[in-house]
């Protein structure tokens, strides 16, 4: 009992994670706390049992005889088969639910077509090309019920940098800027080897695979600057392949976007 309460307390109150800065990060943290609580209870329980047994049942110098001849106990064995099975099933279903809430179960090949009203000078989806889904909220409902169009960004990963192209403004940036509170859709391609796009504060990671465009959708929430890390070994400078993502409040994002926009300049 104490063990269970203690485990729950530790699970809820010890924070091992960095700040959360995307819509799915709090969902992730919820899962993390559940797993951490269960894990702590199990771990402390088993360590306690081992240490207790080693002390309580140690062979004292005067003892020459054997321990008890217990060869098994079927009800007990069924019990500790069933309980982990139930726990694992619960955890599995729960994480499935979490995954669904993070948008991971949206079908493949959705590409970016859910964000239909996209003014995109260079259509990203050649017909019939497979776009491999990652994780991420696919379509965000606005307050009035309509879908908010995601900000499309094209990510190119190469040894050893990320490039971000904003098709709506036809410019390229070395730093990712995204508006807080609006869904973003990254379409990622690698030029040479496999890389992985990881933002720890978003709790999101997606491999960037040569020959196979991948998408990653998310909604940033907390303004700030966070690291983008390459998480797949890609060569000697893999450790140096870092960049940053700036989550701006919508006004500063607008300002930054307009300052870089090349299409409007052409229009004027």
């Amino acid at each position, binding site marked *: 009992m104490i063990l269970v309460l203690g485990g729950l307390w530790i699970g809820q109150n010890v924070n091992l994670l960095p700040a959360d800065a995307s819509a799915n990060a709090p969902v992730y943290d919820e899962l993390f706390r559940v797993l951490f609580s269960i894990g702590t209870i199990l771990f402390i329980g088993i360590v306690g049992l*081992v240490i207790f047994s*080693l002390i309580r049942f140690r062979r004292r110098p005067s003892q020459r*005889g054997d321990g*008890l001849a*217990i*060869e098994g106990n079927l009800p007990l064995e069924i019990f500790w088969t069933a309980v982990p099975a139930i726990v*694992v099933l619960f*955890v599995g279903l729960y994480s499935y639910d979490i995954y669904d809430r993070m948008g991971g179960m949206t079908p493949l090949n959705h590409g970016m077509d859910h964000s239909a009203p996209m003014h995109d000078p260079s259509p990203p989806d050649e017909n019939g090309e497979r776009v491999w889904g990652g994780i991420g909220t696919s379509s965000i409902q606005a307050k009035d019920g309509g879908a908010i169009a995601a900000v499309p960004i094209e990510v190119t990963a190469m040894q050893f940098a990320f490039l971000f192209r904003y098709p709506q403004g036809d410019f390229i940036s070395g730093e990712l800027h995204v508006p807080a509170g609006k869904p973003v859709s990254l379409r990622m391609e690698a030029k040479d080897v496999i890389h992985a796009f990881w933002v720890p504060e978003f709790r999101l990671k997606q491999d960037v695979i*040569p020959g196979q465009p991948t998408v990653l959708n998310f909604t940033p929430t907390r303004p700030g600057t966070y690291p983008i890390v390459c998480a797949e070994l890609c060569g000697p400078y*893999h450790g140096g392949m870092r960049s940053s993502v700036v989550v701006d409040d919508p006004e500063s994002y607008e300002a930054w976007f307009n300052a870089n926009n090349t299409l409007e300049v052409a229009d004027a």
Partner: protein
Amino acid sequence: MTVSLTPQGEQHRPSLQPTGWLRYFSFSVDHKVIGLQYLVCGFLFYLIGGALAGAIRTELVSPMSDFMPRDVYNQVLTLHGTVMIFLWIVPVVNGAFGNYLIPFYVGARDMAFPRLNAVAFWLIPPAGLLLISSYFITGAAQSGWTAYPPLSTTTAASGQVIWILSVLLLGGSSIFGGINFIATVLKLRRPGLKLMQLPMYCWAMLGTSILVVLSTPVLAGTLILLSFDIVAHTGFFNPGLGGNVVVYQHLFWFYSHPAVYIMVLPAFGLVSEILPVHCRKPLFGYATMVYSIMAIVVLGLVVWAHHMFTSGTPPWMRLFFTIATAFIAVPTGIKFFNWLATLWGGRIALNSAVLFSCGFIINFVLGGITGVALAQVPFDVHVHDTYFVVAHFHYIVYGGTVFVIFASIYHWYPKVTGRMLNETLGRLHFLLTFIGFNLCFAPQHWLGLNGMPRRVAEYDPQFAFINQLSSAGALLMAISTLPFLWNVVDSAFRGEIAGDNPWNALTPEWLTSSPPPVENWEGEAPLVHEPYGYGVPIDQIDLAAASGSDLWSSGK
């Protein structure tokens, strides 16, 4: 009282095989000699792999890449992983202990195919030397032990090709070994010995060998395709030529997930041998242990894609692999509860073998918990390819398997040499290893959760302190091998004489002289129906009961 057997003297049969220490350098077909060859050879590679780990942890003391050039760092990292897996863990838990113990356990005088056995061993030293020498000749492979294309097909080709060659040789060795173990356990059992009377290690090796034989050929095929891509510029895994890089990952993990069970199932078996002897109790739940091994074998074959949750795999696949992976925790859990129940109510001798076994239980439980967490897709998406995963598998492979290897050395050293190891040094070794190990790897969970990817030579300076802590733990681990090495060498000459059966064990390897004669027993092999027949029945407990029991019918 102590069970005494008719002492079995040395055997003086003329033999074509060299005798004395020279036989350890020969093409011996004696399973005990081959077992020791595996063990010593594996340990030498462990020292090399450990030195490479030391280099990695030294580089990571500071956030800059300042200890060695970046490409050398990647070579070191690749060699470390490959050496530790293919030249230390796999050969030692399978080859070394398997060869030494399995013939005893089934009541045979040798393995089923002694010559194949010797060939399997003698593939290892050349393969290992080839791998290491690639560093000096052309520069070693730089793409990690996983060798994902296109990185492996675009970095220096010579190193990668040598890497493939040596892994193929090692894979071949492991397949030969696997076939031999299956044949020995199934076909060489002494008449009258039933499968369900075998010591648990036999079951573990049977399960492991099935995995080896089913999955290693897939690795071999994959690596051959990869070498075609490198040498002949074919396009199996080259997206520019219509190939697919993710297919490689599927094929690779189809072998390499079972490989992790190839590394840990034998360790489960060894612990099941060690604990009952020193707790003076029967192994708890023999039958459920056997079924869980077989369940792990079956499930282990269908979980590989949990290494690829961020590779753009379809959602249904992720769901399936999450559930299958998490369910491995059930049979694994059964085994752990059974060991805990074996400890419960025992008369536990707190010697080095038991301490290392209990260290294994504790470390592995933590590794299993993080494993189940990693099996959850949303959790894994954050920590995949980070130091969290590094921590997870070191808790399993080092905290689990390597601890068991040490426990086994403390347990079987008297059998092999006829002398005891020094217990004080053994406990010191345990203490240093346990503290060093946890100091080295526990903080890495935090590093991964907070943004440090794996396989990097440089990192965000905010992680410097925790990395230094981890490196200090690594240093302690390095130091911990010194008392062990001294103990093993010194005790071989000056250790206390052990006698034939110092632990009063009932399994057949102890029912002969220490060290055992060629062909294992002087007379006929003993028939052991109850390898774990320790303990006193509950109704006799208050009598000053005898130790051991004579439930076997020996030497009939």
